[in-house]
């Protein structure tokens, strides 16, 4: 009896152990699966947002191409007047083609969130210290706010982009570039010298 009881108890104990172990395995497995799924989902979400950003950039490039038609790029000109005229004309054509353009047209809210994440990831990553130094040593622009469709101010230096940070951002066609201006990341049309869009209140790589 005792023996039976003991055996039964042992069996019951074994069963309990098996159940507990199984539950633990299931819980651990699902936790692991969930933890694995989250980054994958995030990657997918980020990929979708990046694709949306690329699409908006492509749309801008189409608009730009049509704005540029009729203008001749002054390749290898001796005349700075020609350079100035071309820049102003191109900017004017682009402005006319998107008169209602406003902040967020390209950097839509979810895209801005991704960029904030990518910038923060770089600044707080292993290259963070050198990115901050590189940023500070390139004469950061402070106390300036720019608007969409505004010309980048003549005479104001362009903040150099720390390479490690730049390499972490989505690629752009050569006609466009990212630049920091104070706490904003602007998308600049290079030849037109025009602010295409910007992300406000960004954490920039200033030295901690």
């Amino acid at each position, binding site marked *: 009896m005792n023996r039976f009881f003991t055996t039964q108890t042992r069996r019951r104990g074994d069963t309990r152990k098996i159940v507990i172990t199984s539950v633990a395995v299931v819980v651990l497995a699902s936790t692991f699966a969930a933890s694995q799924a989250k980054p994958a989902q995030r990657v997918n979400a980020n990929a979708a947002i990046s694709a949306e950003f690329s699409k908006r950039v492509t749309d801008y490039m189409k608009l730009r191409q049509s704005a540029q038609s009729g203008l001749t*790029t*002054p*390749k*290898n*000109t*001796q*005349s*700075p*007047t020609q*350079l*100035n005229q*071309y*820049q102003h004309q191109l900017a004017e054509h682009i402005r006319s083609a998107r008169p209602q353009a406003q902040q967020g047209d390209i950097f839509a809210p979810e895209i801005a969130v991704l960029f904030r994440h990518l910038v923060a990831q770089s600044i707080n990553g292993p*290259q963070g210290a*050198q*990115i901050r*130094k*590189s940023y500070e*040593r*390139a*004469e950061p622009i402070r106390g300036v706010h720019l608007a969409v469709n505004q010309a980048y101010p*003549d*005479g104001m*230096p*362009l*903040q*150099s*982009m*720390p*390479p*490690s940070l*730049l*390499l972490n951002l989505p*690629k752009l066609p*050569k006609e466009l*570039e990212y630049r920091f201006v104070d706490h904003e990341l602007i998308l600049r049309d*290079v*030849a037109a*010298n025009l602010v295409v869009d910007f992300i406000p209140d960004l954490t920039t790589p200033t030295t901690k």
Partner: protein
Amino acid sequence: MIRKLVLAALITVGAGTLAFRLTPASTPTLIKTPAGSQAQLDLKLPLEQKSVRFAVIGDNGTGEQPQYDVAAEMEAYEQVVHYDFVIMMGDNIYGGHKPKDFERKFETPYKPLLDTGVKFYACLGNHDNSDETLFKPFNMNGQRYYTFKKGDVQFFALDSNYMDSAQLDWIQQQLRESNAKWKIAFFHHPLYSDGRFHGSDVDLRNQLMPIFEKYGVNVVMSGHDHVYERFKPEGGIYFFLVGNSGELRYHNLRQGSDIMAAGFDTDRTFMLVEIAGDKLYFQTVSRTGQTVDSGALQRQPKPPAENTTPTQ
């Protein structure tokens, strides 16, 4: 490993013996100044036949008197050295980029040189506008980064303001394909600098140095810090900083640096370079005509990767 040992030996010879040894032609040379009077030039270059000769300026485009003074010295030396071209380390035009700025900050000060056919090859600094790439006298052909060859020397002008993946791929490919004896890279932001205002750009250095070392870049020249500095070779590469051909940050060099070979931060300068065979001769001249640094450097051996002939 072998390359490192050879380089170490060369560096010892180059920096210890050659770098500060004045070249034989150190006797004063008389020239006629634009005003008609005679002036003495303290020439340190050997002026060998068929050598590649050029001048280096950086952070020059202020449009102010010191830039004009440096330009006058450059003109005086051109009469003797007959250098063919000038490479510019960026900040070619400070401030506004109206036509009058191009005139006052570039065309007028260097008119005598431009008139004699001296070419200028620019790279972009943080004060430059991208439209400078289209300005013919800067010879950039609409490109932010480009390359050109003079004799045995190939130059690689980079845009250090915006070192994106396209540019990194480009420089890697260009260097890999280059069979030039001398490879000289120039761009605005210095990988090494003892300037207290800016200093070394370590983030940029981490991107570029592995490429430069792998593909055997011999010399790197930059600006940005408004001083003159020559460095002890780093990674087997000779580094120069010429950022005071218009601007100047007086007494800005960090004292007691262990990377500095020579420095000058009390006036503006420009640099003269002559490359003949395996030797690079240099002479750095101040706004007042004083030679503040000179010497000769031995060409480094090519890195092993370059020496290996690919098998089909």
